[in-house]
C-alpha cells in the first residue's frame, strides 16, 4: 500500500510571525520518506476536508509544517497542543527534482517560502530568495542560512531586507544559477517563470489549488497544462504540486 495515515505526536506549534505557525511533529522514525516540495494532508477535527500543507522540513525525524491561519481549519490547527496526536497523510504529490551537482535559485513568496527550506537542505549552497509583504511576515531566514543557503530577503515595502520583488533579485543573479525552483502566489510564479524563460533557465514551480482527496481521485484541484502541444487538465495533488513552469497554462 502506497498510502498510510499516521498519528503523529505534536512536539510544538508556535507562532513565528503574524498569523504564521510552526508545527513540529514526531514522525516516529528518523528517516521521513518525504521529498522536498511534497505535502502533508492534515486532518482537522470537525472539518469536512483535510488541510494540505507543504513540508517545510523533514530532517531528524521531525516533520515540520509552517502554515498560515487563513480560515477556520488552520485556526483549529493553530490551537492544537503539545502532546496531541495529529492525523496526517504524508507524503503526497511530486516534489522538486534537485541535483546536488547544480546551482539553484530557490524562490519563495509569503507562505510559499516554507517548502523552499527543505529544498535548500537538499541542494548545494543554493541561493534562497524570499519575499514577503512586510517585516512582520518574515520567516525562516536563519533556517535558510543554517541549511547552507545564501539567504536574500526582500519585502514589498522595504521594512526588512531589500525593497522590491523576488524577481528583481532573480534577474540580477540568474546568470549564477543552473535552475530555479519556486513557490508562492500565482502572480509571483508567473513572473518567475517569465524571467526564467527569458534567460533560458529550467524552472520548477509549486502550485496551490483548493483540494479535497489529496491523491488524484476527486479531480477538484485542477490545473491546465500543455503537454505535446495539447492543453489538458491535470491535478495539483497528484501530478504536482510541482510542475515544469513551461507546461503550466496560467489563467487557464
Amino acid at each position, binding site marked *: 500500500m502506497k498510502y498510510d495515515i499516521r498519528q503523529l505526536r505534536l512536539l510544538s506549534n508556535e507562532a513565528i510571525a503574524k498569523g504564521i505557525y510552526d508545527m513540529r511533529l514526531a514522525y516516529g522514525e528518523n528517516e521521513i520518506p518525504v521529498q522536498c516540495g511534497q505535502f502533508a494532508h492534515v486532518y482537522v477535527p470537525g472539518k469536512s476536508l483535510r488541510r494540505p500543507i507543504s513540508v517545510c522540513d523533514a530532517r531528524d525525524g521531525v516533520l515540520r509544517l509552517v502554515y498560515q491561519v487563513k480560515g477556520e481549519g488552520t485556526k483549529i490547527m493553530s490551537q492544537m497542543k503539545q502532546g496531541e496526536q495529529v492525523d496526517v497523510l504524508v507524503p503526497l504529490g511530486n516534489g522538486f527534482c534537485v541535483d546536488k551537482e547544480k546551482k539553484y535559485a530557490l524562490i519563495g513568496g509569503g507562505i510559499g517560502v516554507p517548502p523552499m527550506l527543505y529544498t535548500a537542505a537538499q541542494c548545494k549552497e543554493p541561493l534562497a530568495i524570499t519575499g514577503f509583504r512586510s517585516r512582520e511576515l518574515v520567516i525562516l531566514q536563519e533556517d535558510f542560512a543554517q541549511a547552507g543557503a545564501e539567504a536574500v530577503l526582500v519585502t514589498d515595502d522595504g521594512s526588512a531586507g531589500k525593497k522590491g520583488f523576488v524577481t528583481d533579485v532573480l534577474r540580477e543573479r540568474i546568470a549564477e544559477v543552473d535552475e530555479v525552483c519556486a513557490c508562492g502566489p500565482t502572480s509571483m510564479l508567473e513572473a518567475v517563470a517569465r524571467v526564467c524563460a527569458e534567460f533560458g533557465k529550467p524552472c520548477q514551480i509549486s502550485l496551490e489549488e483548493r483540494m479535497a482527496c489529496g491523491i488524484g*481521485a476527486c479531480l477538484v484541484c485542477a490545473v491546465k497544462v500543455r503537454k505535446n502541444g495539447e492543453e*489538458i487538465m491535470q491535478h495539483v495533488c497528484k501530478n504536482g504540486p510541482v510542475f515544469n513552469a513551461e507546461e503550466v497554462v496560467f489563467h487557464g
Partner: protein
Amino acid sequence: MADLSVKVAGVSFANPLIAASGTFGFGREYGEFYPLSKLGGISCKGITLKRRDGNPPPRIAETPSGILNAVGLQNPGVDVFIREDLPWLKQQNTVVIANIAGNTVEDYCAMAEKLSETDVDMIELNISCPNVKSGGVQFGTSCESVGQITKEVRAHCRKPLIVKLSPNVTDIASIAQAAEAGGADAISMINTLTGMKIDIRTRRPIIRNNTGGLSGAAVFPVAVRMVWQVSNAVSIPIIGMGGITTWEDAVEMMIAGATALQIGTVLFSDPYAPVKIAEGINQFLNDNHIASVTELTGTVIPW
C-alpha cells in the same frame, strides 16, 4: 460475524458499502490504502461519450458540515474507461458500476450500448449532475423526461440499470416512480443539492462555476427523508447516499429504506471510512442478534 451481503437487481455485493461516483475516481488511488475487495462495490467517476476537461478551478468549497463541488464531469471518455480502467477494476474483486452522463439521450444510449458489451456489472444513469451546462440534471427534474430517458436507455442497456436521482425536485417519489415505470432496476439517491458560497470580501463565489453541489453530513437528513419517501413509492431497491459519515448513519439509511449505500464525501477526511463503517455495521448486527444486514432495510416504524 453477521451476513453483510446484499443483492441489488440480481447483483451480489459482499457488503452494502459502495464508493460513490465522483469521489473515488476509477478506484486506483484508494486501492493504495486498502484492497478494494473490502468494498461491496465501486461506482466509477461519471463518464461521457467523449473526453471532458471539466470546469475551471476552483471546483470546491468547504461549507458547514459539507462541501460544494463543481468538477463538471472531467473524465477521459467511455472508450478510454473501457480500454484502460475497466480491466483493472474487474480484477479487484468488487462490483463495478459504470456511471454515465451525457448531453443528449443519444449519448446515454450509445454509452449503454458500449458498456453492455463489456463485463461491467451495472450501469448507473446519472441524470442528476448539477454542474454541467447541458444534459445532466436537465434530464432528471421532470417525471416525463426521467421516464423517457430511462425507457430509451433501457432499450440499449443489457446490464442492470440504476437511475441516480437529483434531490433538486419538488416531488422525488413521483420522479422515482417514473424511473421505475421506464424500466429502472434500482434507484440511487441522492445526488448533491445545488448550493452556493460567496467570499464576502471579494463578493465572488468561491467556486468558479458560481454554484456547486452540496454533499457531506449537512445533507444526510434530507437524504434519509427522500430515501424513506421513495421506498414507500417504488418496489425496486434503493441505493441510499448523501452524507453518510458513520456506521450509525449507514444503519439509519438502511432502516429508512436503502438496500445498499454509497459513501462519498467522508472519504476526503477519512479514506478508510467505508471499511470502518462495514465493521461498525457488523458489530451493531452482532450486538443486536441480527443475522443479516438485509433485515434492516425499510424497517423504520413511522409515527
